[in-house]
């Protein structure tokens, strides 16, 4: 029983990342009608925002310490970070420790800006082009973005730890009267994603801006005829989608050390999620994200693997095939979207 609860928890936590990425993808697709293959790269850039903030906070000056030697036998240069020297070791240390949450503040404007630039500079010209062209150009962009990151940060993963206070385990089982320990940061990630998803939905549902965007998603031309500048709003939506992907990336860094190709690792998966949810359906994307996360978690249980060896390797794809064959437009897709 505990094991099952643990895997459900694990699935929700995996699903949070899938759902966040798929949500952003669907926002872009639903509003702009563009298939964005660079969305994984946005997730990756978000993660590297956290790395950058960590690096900035750790910027340091060197003092030569004659008593210690470095690997070549020369006097060791001891590094002290500016932050620590300005705020004192304790306060400075705490700031460095909270690099990842601080990075959220840093990432939101950066990601929105990147989103704007991408949309205005490139994607805009592809609204009227074929989906295949959109896929190709955004795929090219994804390659370029990840190579640029690799050039500056190297290919190996870079550790970005969560704050000390949030890095232990918590007894989640206490709620159910048992003992289930789960990493605090992963629980934080889950609630974070719930908040973001809730935020996006209420934004679209309860604001005038959201209403216009939803109207634009349904019928762009009519909204335009009403004298509303829908393009500008769509650009803003693109920025928001980029920010969602970026925040998902920032918060993901303590879970797994980021590297330059983490975006590609998530790309295929998030497309499967989006399609299973139904192209253009926001609730579908979220639902499919959590569902595939939970199924993936269960498929990696030993009990299940012993019956179906290798199932954990292919579960996502098997589910995708079954859903697409039984529900032609995914879980919640509309008719006629991306079927030609």
């Amino acid at each position, binding site marked *: 029983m505990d094991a099952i609860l643990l895997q459900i928890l694990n699935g929700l936590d995996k699903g949070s990342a899938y759902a966040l990425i798929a949500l952003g993808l669907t926002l872009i697709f639903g509003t702009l009608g563009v*298939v964005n293959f660079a969305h994984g790269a946005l997730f990756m850039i978000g993660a590297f925002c956290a790395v950058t903030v960590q690096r900035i906070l750790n910027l340091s000056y060197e003092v030569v310490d004659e008593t210690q030697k470095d690997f070549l036998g020369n006097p060791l240069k001891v590094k002290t970070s500016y932050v620590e020297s300005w705020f004192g070791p304790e306060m400075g240390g705490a700031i460095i420790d909270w690099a990842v949450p601080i990075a959220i503040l840093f990432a939101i404007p950066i990601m929105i800006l990147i989103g704007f630039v991408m949309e205005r500079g*490139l994607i805009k*010209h592809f609204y009227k*082009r074929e*989906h*295949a*062209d959109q896929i*190709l*150009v955004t*795929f*090219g*962009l*994804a*390659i*370029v973005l990840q*190579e*640029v990151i690799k*050039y500056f940060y190297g290919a190996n993963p870079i550790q970005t730890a969560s704050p000390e206070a949030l890095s232990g385990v918590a007894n989640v089982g206490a709620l159910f009267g048992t003992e289930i320990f789960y990493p605090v940061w992963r629980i934080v990630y889950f609630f974070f994603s719930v908040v973001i998803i809730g935020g996006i939905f209420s934004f679209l549902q309860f604001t005038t801006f959201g209403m216009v965007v939803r109207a634009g998603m349904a019928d762009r031309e009519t909204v335009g005829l009403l004298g509303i500048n829908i393009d500008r709003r769509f650009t803003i939506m693109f920025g928001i989608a980029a920010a969602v992907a970026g925040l998902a990336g920032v918060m993901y860094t303590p879970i797994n050390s980021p590297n330059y190709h983490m975006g590609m690792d998530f790309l*295929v998966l998030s*497309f*499967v999620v989006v*399609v299973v949810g139904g*192209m253009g359906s926001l609730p579908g994307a979220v639902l499919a994200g959590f569902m595939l996360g939970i199924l993936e978690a269960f498929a990696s249980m030993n009990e299940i693997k012993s019956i179906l*060896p*290798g199932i954990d*390797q*292919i579960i*996502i*794809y*098997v589910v*995708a*095939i079954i859903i*697409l*064959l039984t529900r*032609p*437009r*995914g879980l919640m897709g509309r008719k006629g979207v*991306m*079927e*030609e």
Partner: protein
Amino acid sequence: MFGLDNKDTRLLLVVAVLTLCAPFILNPFPTDSAMAQFNAGYPDLMQRFVIFGIFAIGFNILFGLTGYLSFGHAAFLGVGSYSAVWMFKLLSMNVVPAILLSVVISGLFALLIGFVSLRRSGIYFSILTLAFAQMSFNLAYSVLTPITNGETGLQLTLDDPRVLGVSATADGSIPVTNLFGMEMRSTFEMALGPWAFQFNAGYYLCALILLAAFYLSIRIFRSPFGMMLRAVKSNQQRMNYTGLNTKPYTLAAFVISGMYAGLAGGLMASMDPLAGAERMQWTASGEVVLMTILGGAGTLIGPVLGAGFIKYFENIFSKINDHVLHSWFSFMPDGLEDFVVFIIHPFIGKGWHLTLGILFMLVVVFLPGGLVEGGQRIAKWVKGRKNKDDSASATKTPAE
């Protein structure tokens, strides 16, 4: 000629001359010159050009004609390679049965996957094919290791049975692939002044098969069957309303293009008897999509050009290192030399992915019809300078 009209015959002849003279065309620089770095006329790369050309031609029959974007085509290439290597392991080192088997097996595999995937269209079809291919890759890498030899790739060993051949040659090595005794790796070397040209038996086998495949694809493009496929692309619904069942046509196109992929896989294994699982990965499927679109989807020659372009990059650009750069610019003053190398450095050698990504974007943004459109524009421009009236008709000429 061969049941083709004049224009197609000309195209076929051009392709024939290009492929058959490739050892000359691809080796324009003398062996010892600094530019020899850019020579591509060595057997392995020439073989890759034509093999991936076949792969892309086949992909284009599905995508270019019907508009169905398969994102899992590499699976058929992989299956073809595995079948060919198994043939070498079990039967003999002759490439003919291996290639035949790889075409048949991948055709069957395509029939199965196509039958299921073609129940959906648009991106749903793409994701279905992607899912099947990724499943094949993941399983081949892990659970199916007894058949595929997993990460290492399926290789020949000294104790393979090879019932119609020998397990090991007299001097204790693994026999090599051959066509009725003609070794695929045997190469004629021709030195002509400072140039060296290599004529490889395997390459010419691949080239001849490419020509046959190209010819077949022209015939398919021009046949009523091809017209039907184009009709599917332009409006499948209308086709269905006229009471016509389009599924057999699309399925046939899918199987044919799967067989092309299998043929390419079989040839790859014949040139180099090893089959690795990463041939089936989604990135490999993505590569053939890129080749086709880069060259010009729906055109006859485009996919071949795209394949050549990407393979050239992968094999030539990735080999330029800082050392080579310094030797090129050594004529410059020291400071300037370092500066130039510093500027170019991120784009070559380990940065070849970056250059490729930028080029993709440029081509897609400015040349939506791929390299073929680029060629047409140049042709138009040249013509336009000669005769301004001609330019209007040139735009209407289809890319084929």
